[in-house]
Every structure is written in structure tokens, then in C-alpha cells.
């Protein structure tokens, strides 16, 4: 079969099993777009900004586990994609980004819409390629998918000069069945000796805790993690990225840990004598001040990426491997071991944890005359029966969604954890809805974040992806305002906007349904009404208490045991009625 470069690219994606490409055309990719036009197998989703394309592909990837695919043009198309590529990179999301490039003979001449995409993307990709020969396109695409989806996943950029996609130049096409790269051999199973040592340490623990992260979700090891935790009976905490990997409604779950984690999760970490970190990377938002981190604990760390081990926190037993086989190996050893967890010690440990729990650190003022954002998330949880895909943007609303929506399944909680990218939620929700048209998909956002990719409302209309946008509108960049309140004597420097669009009208202008809710009693009916509109995207502009803060909180420079709690429960002042 003889094909042009453009056709080869599209055929390669087809052979790779790609369902959707998220993209935006331009000069350097015109040949590619012409090839896309002439087939129906790979569907193209036209976004309104390249950042939206990357986030939509990212949302698709997070929800399905399959790589997201993006197509952008050279120059500004490529640079606009960078934020989304970095977002995927920080959270280890498999993604293949194809960027157009100016023709080979003019590369380096500052040609129109030329930018060194390989150079610009290098620090935020797992790998990247510049394809210089039409006969290398298929093989490079195969390599890109292989690298993006294996080991610790991540985005891969393939930069394709326009001239090698020329429809006049045809070459034989064959998509490789598999590729091997001599310099790339990701580890699979862990070291047996290390695993044995880890099991011995775990079974001898008096105050153990299981700390699991996004690696469990990425490694499809949620069932194994759950079985592992139940086998041991130890308390489990999840990172922001790990939520849903262990059922949040289970009694062994002690909540998220870290900066806005629960009191009980952070205290359990701090006082523990053995920690097993599973697919988690000791991020600074998790550890707090490193010198104060878990002073009494021996640490076991399972991670597929050796560079994640002992990067910030020294660990005692490192295990490099995929979470799933390692957990399976560990469970076998635990079952066969003559040692069992120390029942008395574990009972005392749970008593202590329950005491911390009894503080009810997530309680808030339920009698407020203003809408409390926490209440909205609780209602969202109930209305969707805890079974929706929730995407979020970044800020207070993200933390509330993480704290109050109790995720029982992996891949349901879709947010930008590592990079913290505002604007992620809406396009991500579109990607999720395309992957699962029958599922409920909600984007929890705020009036600041939503405006960073608001143009994608147009995409949602074009492709009929009915999502529900839960806009927690507090008329502030809430998280910035919170930090300014705590650390800058309430000098709210540029953390509010004088003019916020009338979101109801805006939603309607984009062809969707807009609803404004400003009384607590309206929240539940409005949510029910919105979710009943199965085929419409609904923008719920919910006017919340603008002074509400995210609690509990570990402030900068503090340890897990030193959390800032809500000062006095039930006395939050209803300042400034909406």
C-alpha cells in the first residue's frame, strides 16, 4: 500500500486504535487535515484553543486509561498546547501530541509560524521526536504510543514538518506490530528480596499506614490495592491523585492526606511506625515540611519510576516495579507468612485514629444563610449517587470536590494535581463525556478557573457532550484570597475581579442552559433539574459564601501534626450577603 505522509499518519492512528483526535488546523498541518477529511474511522474533535485540545485528550486518557491524541499546527498552535502537555507530564498521563512543523528546508530560518517545538516541549514531555523522513512516520508514531503508555506514562510529542506529509509523495506503508527501543526497558516486577523484606516490616508494624497515589490508578491496580488493604486491616489514605483507587466510603479509609487532607490522615501519617507508599511520590503538598515528615516511620516505597524513590524523602525499602504485580506478590507472601498483623496493637492504633476522626475536621456551618461550597459538593454527590465522573479546575473548589465527593472508583476524579492548571476542568469534561457518553460528567469549577478555557463551551455544543458545570462562584480567586487572608494580613492583592460575566447569559449565548442559584435551598432542586436534562450542557452558576476557606490546612513550613483547623465550628460569619 502506497500512501502519502498525511495518509500514513492517519492510518497509523487508526491502526493504533485511536478513537478521537483533539485538534485545531493550521498551515503546517493542512495536508494532515486533508487526510483526516478523507476518512471516517478516526474522529476529529475541533476545539476552540489548543490548550483545550490537550486537556480534552488528557481527560479522555484519565477516564479511559487509553492515550489521548492531540493534533496542532506549528508555531502558536504548538506553544498553546504546552500548558496541557506539561499538565499531563506532571500527572503521568499517556498522551501523543502531533504538532505540525514548517517544511524541512526552512527549519531554522525563522519561517512563518516556526517554533522549535522539540526544544520548547523537551522539559515537559517523556520524549519527543522530529520526523525528518516520510518513511519514518509510521515507526515514530508506534514508538510514541509505546513510550507514552508504558512504564511511567507521559506525553510524547511528534513534530512533523509539512513537506513530509505532501500528498504528492507516496511511499509504501506498513504499521509495525511492535517496537523495541534498546535504551528503554521499563521495570515490571519488583525485586523479590525487597518485597520479602517489605512484607516482614509490614507485618511487624504497630502503627502502620497505607499511603497510595495516582500510580495505583495509572497501573489499574485498584482492585489489588483494595484487597491488599483489607487483608491487612490497616488504615488507608489517598493522595489527591489517588482518590478513588481505594473506596472512599470504606471504614478503613481515613481520607486524603497532605495540605488539605483530613486531620486523621495526617496525624496517622505523623505518628505511624511503618508507611507503605504505593504509586505515590512524596509531593511537597503531601509531605509538608520535609524535616518534620513522619519522624517515627520506616518507609516502604513501591514505584515504577526509580527516580521517584528517595527523591525528597529517604525510604528504607524501595521496590521498583509496577504496582499491580508487586501487590500481588506481597499478598501471596502475606497469606503464606506465619506472622500475622499484631491484633492488639492494631486495635489500639484504630482507637487512636477514631479519636482523631471524632474531631470531624470536615464539618462546616450547615445553618448558614449563604450557600456553602461544601454543601454543594455533598449534594452533587447525592444527586449523582456518587457515580459521576468529576473533573475540576484548580483552587478551593478542587479541594472541596476532593474532600466532599467520596470517590469509590478509580478514574472518576479527574483533576490537574501536579501542575495545578486552571482551565483544565471544562475541556477535560468534554473528553470524558466523549469516552463515556452515557455517564454523568460534572465539572466542578470556580468563576476564575472556568474563564481560562470558557471558549470550549462551543466545542461542547458542536459535539453534543452534555456535561454539567458546577461553578462555585465566590467572586474571588478563592485559594489566592485564602492564602492572602492567612499570610498577608488580608491584603487581597488582585485576587478578585470587578466584572464577572453573567454566566447564565454566557451559557445561553453558547447554546447551553444557564442557571443561577443563590439560596441554599435551591441547590438540590437545581442539581436534580440539571442532571435530568440528559442531552443538554447545563451551567450552574452557584453563588457561594465568598469568605469560606478550605480546612483543614497545613500551612507552609509546618508538619502533618500541625494542622490549622476551622476555628470554631458553626460560627462562620455570614459576611457580605451575596
Amino acid at each position, binding site marked *: 500500500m502506497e500512501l502519502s505522509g498525511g495518509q500514513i499518519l492517519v492510518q497509523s492512528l487508526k491502526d493504533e486504535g485511536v478513537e478521537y483526535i483533539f485538534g485545531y488546523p493550521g498551515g503546517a498541518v493542512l495536508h494532515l487535515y486533508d487526510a483526516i477529511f478523507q476518512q471516517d474511522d478516526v474522529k476529529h474533535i475541533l476545539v476552540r484553543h489548543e490548550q483545550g485540545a490537550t486537556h480534552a485528550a488528557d481527560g479522555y486518557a484519565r477516564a479511559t486509561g487509553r492515550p489521548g491524541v492531540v493534533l496542532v499546527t506549528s508555531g502558536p498552535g504548538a506553544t498553546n498546547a504546552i500548558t496541557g502537555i506539561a499538565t499531563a507530564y506532571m500527572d503521568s498521563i499517556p498522551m501523543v501530541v502531533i504538532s505540525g512543523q514548517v517544511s524541512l528546508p526552512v527549519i531554522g530560518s525563522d519561517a512563518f509560524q516556526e517554533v522549535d517545538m522539540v526544544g520548547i516541549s523537551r522539559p515537559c514531555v*517523556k520524549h519527543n521526536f522530529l520526523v525528518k523522513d516520510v518513511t519514518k512516520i509510521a515507526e515514530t508514531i508506534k514508538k510514541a504510543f509505546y*513510550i507514552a503508555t508504558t512504564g511511567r506514562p507521559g506525553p510524547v510529542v511528534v513534530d512533523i514538518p509539512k513537506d513530509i506529509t505532501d500528498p504528492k509523495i507516496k511511499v509504501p506503508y506498513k504499521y509495525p506490530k511492535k517496537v523495541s527501543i534498546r535504551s528503554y526497558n521499563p521495570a515490571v516486577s519488583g525485586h523479590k528480596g525487597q518485597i520479602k523484606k517489605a512484607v516482614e516490616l509490614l507485618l511487624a508494624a504497630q502503627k502502620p499506614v497505607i499511603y497510595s497515589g495516582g500510580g495505583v490508578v495509572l497501573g489499574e491496580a485498584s482492585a489489588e490495592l483494595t484487597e491488599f488493604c483489607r487483608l491487612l486491616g490497616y488504615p488507608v489514605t489517598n493522595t489527591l491523585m489517588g482518590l478513588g483507587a481505594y473506596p472512599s466510603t470504606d471504614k478503613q479509609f481515613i481520607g486524603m492526606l497532605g495540605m488539605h487532607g483530613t486531620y486523621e490522615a495526617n496525624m496517622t501519617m505523623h505518628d505511624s511506625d511503618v508507611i507503605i507508599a504505593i504509586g505515590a511520590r512524596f509531593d511537597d503538598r503531601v509531605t509538608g515540611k520535609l524535616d518534620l515528615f513522619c519522624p517515627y516511620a520506616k518507609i516502604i516505597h513501591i514505584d515504577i519510576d526509580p527516580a521517584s524513590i528517595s527523591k525528597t524523602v*529517604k525510604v528504607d525499602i524501595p521496590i521498583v516495579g509496577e504496582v499491580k504485580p508487586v501487590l500481588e506478590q506481597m499478598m501471596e507472601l502475606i497469606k503464606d507468612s506465619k506472622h500475622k498483623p499484631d491484633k492488639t496493637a492494631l486495635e489500639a492504633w484504630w482507637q487512636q485514629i477514631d479519636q482523631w476522626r471524632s474531631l470531624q475536621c470536615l464539618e462546616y456551618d450547615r445553618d448558614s444563610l449563604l450557600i456553602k461550597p461544601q454543601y454543594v459538593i455533598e449534594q452533587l454527590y447525592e444527586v449523582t449517587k456518587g457515580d459521576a465522573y468529576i473533573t475540576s479546575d484548580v483552587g478551593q473548589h478542587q479541594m472541596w470536590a476532593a474532600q466532599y465527593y467520596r470517590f469509590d472508583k478509580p478514574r472518576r476524579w479527574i483533576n490537574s494535581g501536579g501542575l495545578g492548571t486552571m482551565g483544565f476542568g471544562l475541556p477535560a469534561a468534554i473528553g470524558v463525556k466523549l469516552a463515556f457518553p452515557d455517564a454523568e460528567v460534572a465539572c466542578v469549577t470556580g468563576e476564575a478557573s472556568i474563564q481560562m478555557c470558557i471558549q470550549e463551551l462551543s466545542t461542547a455544543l458542536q459535539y453534543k457532550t452534555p456535561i454539567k458545570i458546577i461553578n462555585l462562584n465566590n467572586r474571588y480567586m478563592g485559594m489566592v484570597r485564602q492564602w492572602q487572608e492567612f499570610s498577608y494580613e488580608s491584603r487581597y492583592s488582585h485576587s478578585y475581579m470587578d466584572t464577572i460575566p453573567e454566566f447564565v447569559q454566557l451559557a445561553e449565548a453558547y447554546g447551553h442552559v444557564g442557571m443561577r442559584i443563590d439560596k441554599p435551598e435551591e441547590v438540590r432542586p437545581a442539581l436534580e433539574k440539571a442532571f435530568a436534562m440528559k442531552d443538554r450542557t447545563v451551567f450552574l452558576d452557584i453563588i457561594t459564601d465568598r469568605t469560606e476557606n478550605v480546612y483543614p490546612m497545613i500551612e507552609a513550613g509546618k508538619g502533618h501534626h500541625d494542622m490549622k483547623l476551622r476555628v470554631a465550628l458553626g460560627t462562620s460569619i455570614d459576611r457580605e450577603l451575596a
Partner: protein
Amino acid sequence: MRHIISILIENESGALSRVAGLFSARGYNIESLAVAVTEDPSLSRITLVTRGNEDIIEQITKQLNKLIDVVKLIDLAESDHIERELMMVKIKTSEHTRAEIRSLADIFRGKILDVTPTSYVVEITGPSEKLDAFVAAIEPETIVEVVRSGPTGISRGEKGLHL
């Protein structure tokens, strides 16, 4: 502590920039860098000198190994090894300094590569400290320029860094 890291890397455009970019992005320091193709034209060998405590060097080697283009690497400083650096020095000469510079070059087992009525170019090869010592032995105002390759190294014994 000083470490000398030897890297086998795919001989592809951009491979070196991935290594250099990693060092700048993560705040590591490159003291010197020497790169050339190996006997296998598909592979280049980088010899990189850096400094840091054990934790930093561990991270550097792990992060380097993560680069897709990096095939293999070793930290030569961990075992017995040989290091060599090449230096060329252009020195202004006068009638009464020429003999002295020649004998100095002899002491350092250097070679004089270029001679004009008013200058010499001297080549010295050896461990970096020897090169330092030679430069220190020359009157500073007579030095026109100094070119150093940066150290390269190889381990002692049978074992080697290869595919």
C-alpha cells in the same frame, strides 16, 4: 564530591540537549562535558563531570537513566579508573623564555605543536590537575589562550561501558 559520569547515548540530534537541559532544569551543575561518537556510529559517549552529595548524584544518575536516549551510564568515580584531559596552550615567547618553556613542556611530557618567532602552542595531556599545574607554572601574562577538552575517562580492568 566530584563525580565523573560516563554516558552511552543514542547518536541522534537533540540527544545532547536532553542531557544539558536536564541539568539546568533540575539545578545540577556541569563542570565539564566531553562528547564524541564511539566505535559504533549509532552511539555517542558523553563524559560529564559534576559535583554533589550522594543524594544528588543518585538523582542525577536516575534522571539521566530516565531519558529515553540514554542507553547506559556509569559513575566512574565509584571505582578505579583512568582520566585524561587534553589541553593546548598558546604562549607568547621571547628569546630568553623559549628555552624555559621548552623544558617546562618536557617536564610535563608536553609537545610543542606550533612555533612562530613569538609564540608556541604546547599540548599537554593528563589528569586535570597536571594541566592545572602546567598553567600555574607559566607566567600568566604570557598566556594567549588555553583550550581544554574537559576530562574523559575509562574504568580500569576488563569491564567496560558497552552495549
